[in-house]
């Protein structure tokens, strides 16, 4: 404190800061009325507030009583007498209530039930899940359409190509979104039971990541891997979309495809498993159950 500038000079400094703030405030108002750029608005408003605040800080630090002041703490802990008096006041009331042995518990039951039932309207917030998490808009014979609703022909896609698809009538549906990748027939090695699900090398998988639901939007054609950009879960499209990296635990459900008489891709049914992130009621996948049984 010994090197502190004399009060007169400090007061001049505070004066200057307040004048700066005043000018910047006026400048802000002018800038706003002429629709100046965001940088000018931010600068003038910022200076107006910074200079005002700095002036107040200097004023309080240099020109106001600093103390140190000493204040005694109140004793928050009660004396034994105070504690006893408070306890007695409570206990006498408690006794008066306890005299009616039935009323207390009955009151608690009635009030508790009321407390419970006023929570009931929470049920109106949304439907119960039912089977919604297990089915999508895909049906047997549903035509494959792109995000503009145009049907997709079997030869629209080159080998190595990828397309986001929906069932006809459910364009942009969040749970039916499907990613179709075309691979060369020669590299296809479908698991048992899925031999004829990928006509012409068109492999269709749910685009909803089985980890946290982001769209599995990145495809590395050379390694045949689908990647989710949110947590980098990666799925091998040649191996039934089994997770090969990242936090996902379940493969992407596959959509069985076929080509209809006019050459358009159509679904042969819904996905092989419930799509999207897991949930409590989700049964373990079939192969797990088989492994558990053997």
């Amino acid at each position, binding site marked *: 404190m010994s090197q502190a500038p004399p009060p007169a000079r400090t007061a001049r400094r505070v004066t200057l800061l307040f004048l700066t703030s005043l000018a910047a405030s006026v400048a802000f108002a002018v800038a706003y009325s002429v629709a100046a750029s965001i940088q000018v608005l931010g600068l003038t408003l910022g200076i107006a*507030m910074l200079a005002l605040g700095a002036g107040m800080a200097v004023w*309080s630090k240099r020109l106001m009583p600093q103390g140190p*002041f000493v204040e*005694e703490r109140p004793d928050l802990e009660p004396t034994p007498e105070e504690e006893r008096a408070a306890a007695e006041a409570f206990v006498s009331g408690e006794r008066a209530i306890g005299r009616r042995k039935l009323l207390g518990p009955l009151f608690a039951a009635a009030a508790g039930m009321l407390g419970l039932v006023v929570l009931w309207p929470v049920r109106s*917030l949304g439907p119960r899940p039912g089977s919604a998490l297990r089915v999508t808009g895909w049906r047997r014979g549903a035509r494959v359409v792109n995000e503009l609703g145009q049907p997709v022909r079997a030869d629209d896609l080159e080998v190595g190509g990828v397309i986001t698809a929906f069932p006809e009538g459910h364009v*942009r549906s969040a749970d039916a979104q499907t990613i179709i990748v075309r691979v060369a027939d020669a590299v296809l090695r479908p698991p048992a039971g899925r031999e004829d699900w990928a006509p012409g090398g068109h492999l269709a998988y749910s685009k909803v990541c089985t980890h946290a639901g982001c*769209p599995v939007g990145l495809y590395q054609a050379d390694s045949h891997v689908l990647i*989710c950009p949110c947590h980098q879960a990666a799925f091998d499209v040649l191996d039934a979309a089994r997770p090969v990296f990242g936090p996902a635990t379940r493969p992407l459900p596959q959509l069985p495809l076929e080509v209809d008489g006019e050459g358009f891709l159509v679904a042969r049914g819904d996905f092989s498993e419930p799509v999207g992130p*897991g949930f*409590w009621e989700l049964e373990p996948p079939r192969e797990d159950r088989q492994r558990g049984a053997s």
Partner: protein
Amino acid sequence: MTHVDTPVGKLLSGLDRRLGAAKFTRSKLNYVFPEQFSFLFGEIALYAFVALVATGIFLMLFYSPSETKTLYEGSYAPLRGVEMSEAYRSVMRLSFDVRGGLLMRQIHHWAALVFTGAVAAHLCRVFFTGAFRKPRELNWVTGVILLMVILLEGFMGYSLLDDLLSGAGVRIANAVVQSIPVVGSTAAFWLWGGEYPGSGFLGRLFTLHIFLMPALITALILVHLALIVRQKHTQFPGKGRTERNVVGTRMWPTYMTMSTGLAFMVGGVLALMGGWLQINPVWLYGPYDPFTITSGSQADYYVLWIQGALRLMPPWEVRAWGVTVPNPFFPGILLPVVLFGLLFAWPWLEAAVTRDWRTHHLLDRPRDRPARTGLGVAAIVLVTLLLIAGSDDVIAVEAGWSIVAFRNVERILLLVLPVIAGLLAARVARDLSRAEPLGADAATEVPAPASGGERG
């Protein structure tokens, strides 16, 4: 009898006489604040919250919480003719066609980042100095509740914009809620109004973000401050400072002027940031659609640690007896519950270990409590590693590393580094404490007997 002749003085004495508040007024005007820079984190948080409310009121007059699809025809040429939600369009309009709109939006977003950061710094200060000890356990608990509410509030806020980035965040949040055992899918259906993306979700989020959560935060802040006023500030040991007094500057006029000055300075810095530093340029991300995604998605840092945990979690989940506990439950729900549970329980855990249940108004120097300091540093390192993991894809791409190898390294670091850092911090603390012991006279000196009303 009155000797108060200024207008404000007259108003105060008039209120005093009608409310019997003279004694209260005097004691509060003479309230003594111990001064230490780290005590300002809480105040900075408070003033950032004021800035959030002020800018938020402006923003809510322009935002429209509707998922209805519409075509953009505004002044941002690259998105003209693009289909988007009414919500995203209202944000575009606010950013490009409302005068001062982008400034308010950017100040609001920066204020949220400063708010959460100041709260975290304040939490660290209280933790490392032992300010949570008896009699302040209740205020510690209030503060931890505030922290949880604030993190949720921030996440809700940037989810309202319905841009490609925030949409992915909401999608993940839905999956995390759905992963809760037994009630998860029902809870997700109730919150979102149906299967994802639900119906009317933005409207619910908006009501929560602009009304319920701010009201809750305000109420909790009032409780937080009332408890401080009742129990008075802690102070570091030093000359004339004891367990029975508070030494510092008075509320009126010095501290009030200083603190109001700080409020304006916080506002000024936020205004400069809002004007000059671009934040959350949603027009570059584009509107959200459940089937679109971009790589390099980042959450705001205060939820990024959960994103990091979701990434580092190995591909395990529980499947037994015909039910599933999905993978996101462990990093997304269990980890935060455990971390916040430890935070809540800390005052009692520490007292149980140290067997020190006494009242403390004098703070610890972190170096004098090596075990606590080490644990705190370990926790900070853990959360920092999770934060880094939340952007590890971007880091790996920028550095040219293999994400596969990098993630395995991160997992090992997550297990090892907090322990090493904690032990190291405890060691350094112990050495520092020995090298420079707390002055024996500092804590025991008899306080000056001056009362609150007298100048010391």
